[in-house]
């Protein structure tokens, strides 16, 4: 799908769908329209960027189910829900599932646009965090078994001498492993290495 950030509008009412699309485009957003959750889901891939503006009540998969399906597919795009009036139980559930916003269908345009902006910002931030995480995992994955073992000890704050004793290897070998680790992960300080290892979920 599109590489640039896009607002994906899902609504079973064709008039409303077209009108929301027009408004978002007039406001300068990239917008694509879908008449059902199923139709939209076939177009979603891991590198789909942007946010979803979805009707809450729809035949087939409703808005909440669409949100669940996105989360399961590994593309947890932020969702802005549109609804009729005061549907409290659904609101609570949607918020719990991480809805960015919940608007009445007749909410004024500046509210809708502000909600879409927040959703796009959130997607960008979450995407950046995910990318960083993936990159870290990739770097740590390049370590050999022995280097991982050494790293585990380093993260615990042990000195080279202790590590060498624990692993039954020469202290100079430990130093060589540490150099390799620093080169592969790309950080020189132990403190930073520890933070990154934790962030990458390495020794959990």
């Amino acid at each position: 799908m599109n590489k640039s950030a896009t607002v994906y509008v899902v609504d079973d009412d064709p008039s409303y769908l077209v009108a929301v699309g027009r408004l978002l485009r007039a406001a300068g957003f990239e917008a694509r329209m879908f008449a059902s959750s199923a139709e939209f889901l076939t177009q979603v891939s891991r590198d789909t960027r942007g946010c979803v503006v979805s009707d809450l009540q729809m035949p087939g998969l409703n808005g909440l189910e669409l949100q669940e399906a996105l989360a399961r597919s590994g593309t947890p795009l932020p969702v802005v829900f549109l609804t009729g009036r005061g549907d409290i139980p659904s609101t609570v559930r949607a918020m719990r599932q991480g809805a960015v916003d919940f608007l009445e269908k007749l909410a004024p345009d500046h509210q809708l646009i502000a909600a879409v902006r927040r959703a796009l910002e959130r997607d960008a931030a979450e995407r950046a965090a995910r990318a960083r995480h993936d990159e870290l995992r990739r770097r740590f994955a390049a370590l050999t078994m022995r280097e991982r073992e050494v790293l585990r000890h380093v993260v615990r704050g042990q000195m080279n001498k202790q590590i060498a004793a624990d692993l039954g290897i020469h202290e100079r070998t430990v130093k060589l492993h540490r150099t390799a680790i620093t080169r592969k992960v790309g950080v020189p300080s132990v403190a930073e290495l520890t933070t990154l290892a934790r962030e990458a979920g390495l020794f959990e």
Partner: protein
Amino acid sequence: MLRWIAAHGRAESGADGRPLVMRGIVRDITESKRAHDESEKLRRELAHSGRVTLMGQLSSALDHELNQPLGAILRNAEAAEMLLRAPEPDLDELRAIVADIRKDDRRAGDVIDRLRALLKRRSVELQPVEVESLVQDVIALVRTDAAVRHVALDFVVASGLPRALGDKVHLSQVLLNLIINGMDAVSESQEGSRRVVIEARRNVDGMIEVAVTDSGSGIPPEIAEKAFNPFFTTKSSGMGLGLPVSRTIIEAHGGKLWAESNAMQGATFRFTLPVAEGTVR
């Protein structure tokens, strides 16, 4: 034709304890079974048409069907406003928007027409109706509700009341609505003094008159007429359609429905119905 038979009997034994003869009665209960089934059916229809279908249809029509076209109109108008801010607005797009606004306006109008048709439903089938059993059936429907809410329900019917000319299902809906309103009106009163009385009699004009009186705090005069306006409500969860729908139904029968505030306390909602021909005693 299928007939329903009920049998009761007892065996009589001889001196040696062996059964000799069986005495008892066998009754044909087809009629009472049929009447029972019919009232069950009515009860189901009522529960359905009165509380689910009509109100359900109305609120879904309002919440969903009207919100869609109104929402589309709003979004289109907002988009048009934005486009008009451009130095050279896209006229083709603006024309398309205006055409769509028109289309959705018509769609919203159609929803309102359908709502109106629903409220005025022409399919009122007038038949002779036994008022006493009509009221009893509705009371049976709300009895549990009344017990839970500690409301005493009384029914007083004048003897020799002729049958009314009406549509059982629609009239039940009116009664149901008035009785539930009455129960709502007394919900703030002290337990033990919550009372709703239904009276049926013949009035001086020869019409059948049914009154539902509650022991609540009564209706301020400025509200008494407004209460029949669609969407006027004093309840947090009400749609404000019960009374206008009821009045429409009663007027379709050739009767009247109005509210009275009582000198003592509480309010009375009273409606009239024509007497069925040939039943005048």
